């Protein structure tokens, strides 16, 4: 029943095969074709930590209405580039799942495409994914012209166009027809791409990183655009070098971001504390994956929340902001830069593999930055105090070499000129200056929609969550009545009064989190005193789907 409910509003296609067979690319191209036709598409990518072989798959879920999540069973079509795909996903099929595979792969039903003529037509075996994409397009009733437009712009090599047509002509085309929906202003992108674009829109000067899944795509994305936008991408010897270099560059006047995942973030923690003391602006993108330790490196989790909130010794202000989709990732990246540079704080942009590597369809109007990028620098003549004690705790920032007076940054407790101090009264004053700054940042964050509410605002049953669970929860919400979804965007500073207002009359408050302990519940208890033990958690390294949430809420 639940299934019929979900399938009535969306369709899902699984494409699977070995790593290196072009599964992800075929799914991305299919997604773009469907968006071009006016559909909303979500493209989930599932891959193990290897380069060749194994089993990779994507699930492309699409609908004429909004869709922000994928399905993990009941696929309408399974495109199997190899036998293992059929075997692996057989338990997830529905009774009429249609299979498309090359000849030689045994399938329960559907069509086998004979690819033996392909080589003669100048189509190399590497393009088998595109041949099957052609057959799939035929099956779904996708107009050939639109598909070819996308193939031409997305895939290099003339053989790809031939490969698509080869599959299209041999395909049986029994799955209906997909017409064009007249829509404008649709974007198709991943969270990582949105973060890269948000950094560019923030005027980034330097992106510094050490490769680590799932943050690496941002490194690649920005490296491919550094010439166009004239900024530097720097890969250094380890994450410790990365974060200290970032602080050095930021001190010297550059707009900087670093990106990493849990292990790399752990290596950076000492320097996060240096940020707190030195007040040198720093933006860190933390892309979570399944831990602890190396864990399940190409899969997702939300289990580094408490770590992100507490990493670094001593007490100092910080911002932790968690986007829920690429439009938010774009805007929140801009805010992370704005807050870091305006208030000289640490901004942690908390994402994960699911947000980072899934493709979402976003509408133009959903991108609406609340802030404008700026360097926030002063160039006083004569005297300058690098740590001037001010009412709001924020010292106007200058950079070395730009003014006559020395500009200092320091890891030691210091006086207003940045000279080391061990005097009690000065230590107290500086600690209080940083506390006042935290309060100033809190006020600024309260203007940036730190919390969002979806669904029926009067509902007395509440889902509380943050980050990449947004998609599955929104898609589940459409099948629920009497529920609302409270999404916490800024976890530090925490929007306590806004949150308490949303749950004060609630009959049920359920935490949804990709973790085994429900860390946001602990944060809420700590920040507001509100306690709920009602949790829907998932910790098999897979992201939520609407079906999973609905089953758990109803069960």
């Amino acid at each position: 029943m639940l299934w019929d409910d979900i399938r009535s509003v969306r369709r899902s296609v699984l494409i699977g095969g070995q790593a290196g067979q072009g599964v992800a690319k075929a799914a991305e191209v299919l997604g773009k074709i469907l968006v071009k036709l006016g559909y909303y598409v979500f493209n989930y990518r599932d891959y193990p930590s290897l380069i060749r072989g194994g089993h990779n798959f994507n699930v492309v879920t699409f609908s004429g209405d909004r869709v922000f999540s994928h399905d993990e069973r009941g696929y309408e079509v399974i495109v199997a580039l190899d036998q293992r795909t059929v075997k692996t996903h057989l338990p997830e099929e529905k009774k009429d799942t249609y299979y498309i595979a090359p000849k030689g792969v045994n399938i329960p039903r559907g069509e086998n495409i004979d690819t033996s003529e392909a080589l003669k037509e100048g189509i190399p075996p590497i393009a088998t994914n595109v041949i099957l994409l052609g057959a799939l397009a035929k099956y779904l009733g996708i107009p050939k012209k639109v598909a070819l437009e996308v193939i031409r712009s997305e895939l290099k090599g003339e053989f790809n166009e031939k490969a698509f047509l080869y599959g299209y002509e041999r395909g049986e085309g029994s799955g209906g027809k997909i017409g064009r929906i007249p829509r404008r202003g649709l974007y198709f992108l991943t969270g990582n791409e949105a973060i890269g674009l948000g950094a560019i829109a923030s005027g980034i000067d330097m992106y510094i990183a050490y490769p680590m899944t799932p943050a690496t795509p941002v490194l690649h994305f920005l490296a491919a655009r550094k010439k166009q936008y004239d900024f530097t991408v720097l890969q250094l010897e380890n994450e410790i070098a990365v974060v200290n270099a970032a602080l050095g560059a930021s001190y010297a006047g550059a707009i900087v971001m670093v990106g990493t995942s849990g292990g790399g973030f752990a290596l950076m923690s000492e320097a996060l504390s240096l940020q707190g003391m030195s007040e040198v602006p720093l933006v860190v993108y933390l892309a979570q994956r399944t831990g602890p330790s190396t864990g399940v490196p190409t899969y997702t989790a939300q289990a580094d929340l408490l770590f992100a909130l507490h990493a670094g010794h001593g007490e100092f202000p910080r911002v932790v902001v968690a986007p829920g989709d690429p439009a938010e990732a774009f805007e929140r990246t801009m805010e992370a830069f704005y807050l870091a540079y305006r208030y000289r704080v640490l901004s942690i942009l908390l994402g994960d593999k699911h947000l980072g590597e899934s493709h979402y369809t976003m509408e133009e109007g959903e991108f609406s930055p609340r802030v404008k990028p700026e360097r926030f620098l002063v160039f006083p003549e004569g005297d300058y105090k690098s740590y001037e004690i001010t009412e709001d705790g924020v010292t106007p920032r200058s950079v070395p070499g730009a003014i006559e007076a020395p500009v200092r940054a320091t890891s030691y407790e210091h006086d207003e000129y940045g000279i080391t101090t061990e005097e009690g009264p000065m230590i107290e004053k500086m600690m209080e200056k940083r506390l006042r700054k935290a309060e100033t940042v809190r006020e600024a964050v309260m203007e940036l929609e730190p919390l969002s509410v979806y669904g029926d605002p009067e509902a007395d049953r509440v889902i509380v969550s943050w980050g990449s669970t947004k998609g599955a929860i929104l898609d589940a919400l459409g099948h629920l009545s009497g529920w609302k979804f409270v999404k916490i965007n800024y976890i530090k500073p925490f929007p306590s009064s806004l949150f308490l207002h949303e749950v004060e009359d609630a009959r049920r408050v359920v935490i949804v989190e990709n973790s085994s302990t429900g860390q946001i519940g602990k944060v809420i208890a700590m920040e507001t005193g509100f306690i709920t033990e009602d949790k829907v958690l998932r910790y098999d390294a897979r992201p939520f789907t609407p079906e999973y949430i609905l089953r758990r809420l109803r069960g």
Partner: protein
Amino acid sequence: MKFDLKKLDTYAENTWCPGCGNFGILTAAKQAVAELVEEGYPLNKFTLVAGIGCHAKIYDYININGFYSIHGRVLPTAIAIKLANPELIVLGFGGDGDTYAEGTAHFIHAARYNADITMVVHNNQVFALTTGQATPTSERGYRGKSTPEGKWEEPMNPVALALMAGATFVARGYSYDVKHLTWLIKEGVKHRGFAFIDVIQPCVTFHNVAPYVRERMYKLEEVGHDPSNFEEALKRALEWNYDLDPKAKIPIGIFYKVEKETMEEGYNRRIPYYKVERKVDWKQVLAEKKII
């Protein structure tokens, strides 16, 4: 024009031990900055980066731009400062624990990156601010509180390491020969690329090697050493392995000097980023992801 050295003083109280070898390095650094300013280098472009340890207090004692970093991280900080603003004259000051223990990886890679910065290592062969433990450059047999029976393993030879790692300027100074050290620091600053200067710095409290060093020290420039010859440089570097061998000779001066492309050139960095006015239209940035 004569530069008034007093301009480089700060009001900070100097807390080094009386007679500390660091005073020599401080004096030489200030003298080098003063002379370079007299030669036309702008004072406000000098930017120092210090690690953590006795050496690092130098941050408080010279009135120029400064980043008092954390233990071991002088080099990544300094390199990135140079990339962000190539107009700055970046002076790194590290200790031997700082540079050769906590930050070894950065040291090796900094030699390879060849950013145009100068790195001065206050090598007193001991962790002094933590009261006298052995460092990688302490001699075999060094007795500290953590090695009461004497340090077991062989010392690291940072000069040889820097040469092998590809540093383009490798030198050794002696903290009590201020004039010579001043010259080395100036040569380091003038060198286009990564200039590394290991400074033997007797620690009067925990590791006073002044009598040992004084007797065995000689100057490379006085024996006709050719700093463009890599093999010769390596041979000279291996003359002393930092053990307190009574028969050793200790060369100071410039071991090796070569011109290579700098990191800033490699990354095509010229204009300080803070001067770059970016007029980015966020809608245009997003356009590449617009499908319809």
